[in-house]
């Protein structure tokens, strides 16, 4: 099975992806590799609009038939949008992890924090090692 890791995104060790929206906000989800490890996603506990997180704070929970897994905010910031479609269709995380399966959009506390994240190549090496 080949794992999809889009070039244009940034990544974390805990398998979140981050899309820099170039306007001080970033959209976040979990990677194809992460959804494969989790198996069928059946429930997503989303953060509330307006919640404020620090980098690496737990921001939600993604539950598959197998287990519950924390979703970490890769960056500090305020939640300005959550993907409410996941309430009814949590399986979007499996079928479209980088598209309709996105989880939250944050208004970043500091856009320079994006530089701390991994690029696609580094993430590929990271998961190859684990």
């Amino acid at each position, binding site marked *: 099975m080949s794992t999809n890791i889009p070039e244009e995104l940034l990544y974390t060790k805990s398998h979140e992806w981050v899309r820099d929206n170039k306007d001080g906000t970033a959209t976040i989800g979990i990677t194809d590799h992460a959804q494969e490890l989790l198996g*069928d996603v*059946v429930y997503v506990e989303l953060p509330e609009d307006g919640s404020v997180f620090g980098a690496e704070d737990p921001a939600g929970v993604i539950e598959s038939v197998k287990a519950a897994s924390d979703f970490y905010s890769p960056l500090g910031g305020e939640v300005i949008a959550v993907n409410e479609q996941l309430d009814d269709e949590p399986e979007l995380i499996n079928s479209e992890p980088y598209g309709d399966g996105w989880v939250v959009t944050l208004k970043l506390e500091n856009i320079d924090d994006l530089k701390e994240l991994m690029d696609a190549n580094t993430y590929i090496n990271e998961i190859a090692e684990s």
Partner: protein
Amino acid sequence: MSNTTPQHTPLYEQHLKAGGKMVDFAGWEMPINYGSQVKEHNQVRTDAGMFDVSHMVVVDFTGQDCKAFLQRLLANDVDKLKQQGKALYSCMLNEDAGIIDDLIVYYLADDFYRMVINAATRENDLAWINKQAAHFDLHINERDDLAMIAAQGPNAREKLLATLDDASATQVSALKPFFGVQIDTIFYARTGYTGEDGFEIVLPNEAVAALWNTLLAAGIEPTGLGARDTLRLEAGMSLYGTDMDTTTSPLVSALKWTVVLEPKERNFLGRSALEAEIKAKPTTKMVGLVLEGKGILRGHQIVVTKSGKGEITSGSYSPTLGVAIALARVPVDTGDHCHVEIRNKQIVARVLKPPFVRKGKSCL
């Protein structure tokens, strides 16, 4: 596990070929799923799926004291088994009425019974059985030469029968639920662990890969241990080591129906402790829960009732019902609703008597 080298069943290559995601299960490397647990679950509920259960342990008892021995060993009474091939579900108890294992025993002849026990409890079970058998005239034979496939689902019976020669098909199609028959080297039993119709098929290790391939060609899809767990949970069937163990008796495990106390002369192992527990009245019971709010029920979550706290023993998302369900041990006078603590929130759940799903239909 002291032994770190995982064991493989004779179907290991078939699992890899089918894309099985292999995980450790009681020292065996087994498929948790072949891509999607939910898809495999639904396949069994609506059509037909098969599981490799070769890691389970087949034990044959032969000799003139078989019946007397099993009447001593088991809390259910093999005297109920009058017809050849009939199966019985039972607990095997210790002297304190704690459950050592749950099992199925088949009556094949007056001097021949077959038992199927769990893989995880193998060593402990066999040590206990052999110890208790010391003064009985019988042979105990662990059949490591045998493998087992469970073919389950509303179409499993028809699909399996279509693969058999006429003579075998006639005998196998005549099997009523909870009966088995030996035909040459293959034992077919109309039993299972999913709440669906189907068969468990026991056959020599060297023949099992060919049967797997035949069933696959007949449209019976590989199904992993993950789906096996959600299927049995929906069917309200307990899992040894999770819902019950040596610290719980059948009385607090919703298994009182498997305990036979008459005749009083039958002095089965655990009987006096069980009678004392009945007299003292158990303070807990096993129930089913359906979550009414959002979230997923999981093992070890705390159940809050007006009469005190309880605990979920196994919980998951029910693919058939689209809600979270669980088995839980709760105070004996728990009403029809309770709360479950999920990540510091209390969520309402309905209390009911399992099963949740039977033969593809919701029981809610």
